[in-house]
């Protein structure tokens, strides 16, 4: 079985759309979201080769007629799009229309489109389930920057969009059955899981996965609040670092803030499908990137030198043959050199090495007094940014939440003495405990809650670490490793409908086996360590590139996991997400400090 690849799945649909439209000159009509979906998997030059010469938005009104063109409409089935389509068909611009929706569309809407199609321009209406943004082969996102609403409830529209996105993901990966497991402690995850299961069963007669089948898929829905640490850490792998320090949106990086940047490098595209250097170095850490970039530069200089020596005719021929590749290579080299230069400049001026070491030690080791001293030192250091101090304080608050000498307030007081923290950050610090504190989590985030974990941590500490900046392992990795071994506890992560299902489609741990044996007849395999062959993960509240890196590593060792979330967070977007969940209005010392 080939590996799960969401980019291939989306490209397949788009290729099919373009082929079906025939040999004529085509124009692609999209809406705002599908434009991002298409641009992430297809480069413009490639799509031009397939005779798609015009790219339009359905909500932007066009004027004149293009009757000699065929329109391929790739739209999400929202109210606005249907209205816009109806308006378009009443005065059609194009000669013929091939309409593809990214998700289920009601028969009523088809009826309204049919009634509007007086000139009979529409040839085909199909549903092609590409309703998510594919970033890497194992990584997808739904581009929803803020999922939470006040008091951590679902917004109806966002819930519908999320369920639609997940359904389309399952269908595009050609899954016919799946078990849906969700995080028990999160209400939002539970609601989403039930909604998803209902939609699948209703629309498609989706069977719940037969556990004995060889290709058993598990859909795991967890909540970001379970692991609030990962978005707070500074990163050192290429993709994650660029996103954290500069910001990647839809594979585009805005470099206009870089001093001395040339006009053509102000906005660059970083796409692993089309950029070999990037694809090789997505997950390599900062040191490795430096070596690789040096090698790339040397390679480029060699080529350049050989290009300049043109004496014989064979030389001229080889020059002409290799010139287009050379031009592409020079573009790639300048882009990556600029980006890496900017990253190292930022690392230097913000003292990120020192800071990151402190962060990692704070999260993974337990020298309380030492860490407090270090944090106080860093607060006094002018080079460190305000947001990094906020990171440290939040990490400290989460880590030592129930510690005897909790110094969060003291640290905050010191910070406010030397720095002017913006209102947003102060609210964020207040909100983070409400968001991801011990009250909400069910997982053992710092390996302090049971003896097994403590011993594991101790042994890890004794062994020492080979990379002090990569000590932290995100919770999702532990969860997935447990799931792969068949050891993910059912009471913490139940599957949908497990209470009233009687057949063998459920998965029980050995401890619960006896409970149910008395009640209902059960068929299960003799070995209860059933391992899912494929896992599809969705994190409500967003994911990070660090988690994507760990999943990539797991996939390299033979797992088949696809990771996704509502958004790919860096620190800035995470702050907005947490604040949207609601700031606790309890009066406490923080307010007292402010009033001073």
């Amino acid at each position, binding site marked *: 079985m080939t590996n799960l690849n969401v980019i291939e799945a989306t490209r*397949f*649909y788009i290729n*099919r759309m373009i082929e079906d439209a025939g040999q004529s*000159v085509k*124009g692609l009509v999209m809406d705002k979201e599908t434009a991002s979906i298409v641009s992430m998997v297809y480069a413009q*030059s490639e799509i*031009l*080769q397939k*005779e798609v*010469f*015009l790219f*339009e938005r359905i909500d932007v009104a*066009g*004027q*004149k*007629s*293009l*009757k*000699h*063109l065929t329109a391929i409409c790739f739209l999400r089935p929202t109210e606005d799009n249907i209205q816009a389509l109806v308006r378009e068909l009443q005065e059609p611009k194009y000669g013929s229309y091939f309409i593809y929706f990214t998700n*289920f*569309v009601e*028969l009523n809407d*088809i*009826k309204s*489109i*049919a*009634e509007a*199609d*007086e000139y*009979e321009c*529409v*040839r*085909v*209406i*199909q*549903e*092609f*389930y590409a309703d998510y943004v594919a970033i890497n082969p194992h990584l997808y996102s739904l581009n929803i920057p803020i999922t939470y609403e006040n008091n951590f409830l679902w917004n109806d529209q966002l819930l519908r969009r999320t369920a639609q996105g997940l359904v389309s993901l399952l*269908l*595009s990966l*050609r899954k016919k059955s799946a078990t849906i497991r969700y995080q028990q402690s999160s209400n939002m995850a539970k609601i989403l899981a039930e909604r998803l299961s209902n939609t699948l069963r209703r629309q498609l007669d989706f069977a719940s996965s037969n556990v004995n089948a060889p290709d058993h898929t598990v859909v795991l829905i967890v909540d970001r609040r379970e692991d609030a640490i990962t978005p707070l850490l500074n990163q050192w792998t290429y993709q994650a670092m660029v996103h954290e320090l500069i910001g990647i949106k839809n594979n585009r990086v805005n470099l206009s803030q870089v001093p001395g940047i040339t006009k053509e490098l102000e906005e660059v595209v970083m796409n692993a499908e089309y950029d070999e250097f990037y694809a090789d170095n997505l997950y390599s850490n900062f040191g490795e990137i430096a070596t690789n970039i040096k090698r790339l530069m040397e390679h480029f200089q060699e080529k350049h030198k050989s290009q300049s020596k043109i004496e014989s*005719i064979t030389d*001229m*021929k*080889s020059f*002409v*043959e290799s*010139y*287009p590749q050379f031009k592409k290579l020079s573009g790639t080299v300048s882009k990556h050199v600029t980006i890496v230069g900017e990253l190292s400049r930022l690392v230097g001026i913000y003292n990120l090495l020192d800071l990151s070491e402190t962060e990692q030690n704070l999260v993974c080791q337990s020298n309380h007094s030492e860490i407090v001293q270090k944090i106080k030192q860093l607060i006094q250091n002018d080079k460190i940014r305000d947001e990094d101090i906020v990171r440290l304080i939040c990490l400290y608050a989460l880590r030592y939440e129930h510690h005897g000498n909790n110094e969060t307030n003291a640290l905050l007081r010191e910070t406010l003495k030397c720095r002017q923290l913006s209102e947003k950050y102060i609210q964020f610090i207040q909100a983070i405990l409400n968001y991801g504190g011990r009250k909400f989590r069910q997982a053992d985030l710092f390996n302090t809650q049971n003896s097994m974990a403590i011993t594991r941590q101790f042994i890890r500490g004794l062994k020492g670490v080979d990379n002090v900046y990569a000590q932290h392992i995100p919770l999702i990795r532990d969860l997935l490793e447990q799931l792969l071994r068949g050891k993910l506890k059912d009471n913490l992560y139940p599957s949908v409908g497990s209470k009233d299902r009687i057949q063998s489609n459920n998965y029980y741990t050995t401890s619960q086996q006896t409970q149910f044996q008395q009640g209902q007849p059960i068929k299960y395999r003799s070995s209860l360590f059933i391992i899912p062959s494929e896992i599809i993960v969705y994190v409500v509240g967003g994911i990070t590139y660090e988690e994507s890196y760990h999943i990539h590593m797991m996939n390299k060792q033979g797992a088949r996991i696809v990771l996704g979330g509502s958004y790919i967070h860096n620190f800035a977007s995470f702050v907005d997400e947490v604040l949207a969940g609601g700031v606790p209005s309890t009066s406490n010392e923080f307010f007292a400090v402010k009033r001073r």
Partner: protein
Amino acid sequence: MSSRNLTSNFLEFRNRASQNRTNHADNSKWDDRNPLLNDDEDDDVVHFERNDAFLWMEFHRKIQSQFGEIRNQIKKLQQLQAKCLTRQVFDEDAHSDSEIRLITKDITSMLDNCQMSVQKFSSFAKKSQANSYEQQLVSNAAQATFNTFQDLALKFNQCQSNYVRKLQSQKDKLDQVTSHIAIDMYASPFGDNEFDQISLLSEVQQQSASPVDEYTTWREKELRDTYESIQEVNTIFMNISTMISNQKASIDQIECVICDSINSVEQGNKELVKAVQRQQRSLKIKLILFGIGIFILLFVLFISYI
């Protein structure tokens, strides 16, 4: 592939809707009160646009068919070359050699024609079209044809150079082998001593007879090489010209944009000058009015005192 085809439902709905429409059709349009001809100006404009649009599409279709032909010829060439490379070493097949040369000439001339049409298409794209959509459409189409043409030319070059390289390596191997055989041929099978004289004589004879033949073969080889190298130079210059014309397009665009911005900056300058003058004038008028007002006030005060 997971998808769902809703076309049948759609067609059903559409037929039903069209039936409903004809049943409830409003016949007022066909009343005798309406004039025969409509004074609609738009029709002319639409008519004009359509010609233009079809023109570039014709162009595009012709170029695509040319590309298709070139691709077929390149495939044939590759097959012939593969056949030549795998044939027996001593089997000098002049026929397939000449065929290869013929096809290469064909492809070169077709690429030449293609290049002219692609350039014509690009210049047509630069002319301003009826609206921005057409403009973008045609420029995208021109860009795509240009890229395809470059790829084809590159492919042809690579094909040729691979063939020459493989042929060269084969010849080198052959030379090594024949040089060994040459030594063996001249070594006598009965030992060196007795037949040395005879073998020496025959060698001398061979050497004296060879200069003339050698000279002619060498000259022929040189001529052939020169001919081929001139052909290669031709294709190289053609490729360089396409690359440069590619850059020319962007440079032209830059020039255009700069001219536009010069115009708008000059206009903006004029407007600013006018605004400044107006402001100054209004300031002057305000001062004068203020002065008059104060004068009148003083006058009134003066009179009231008196």
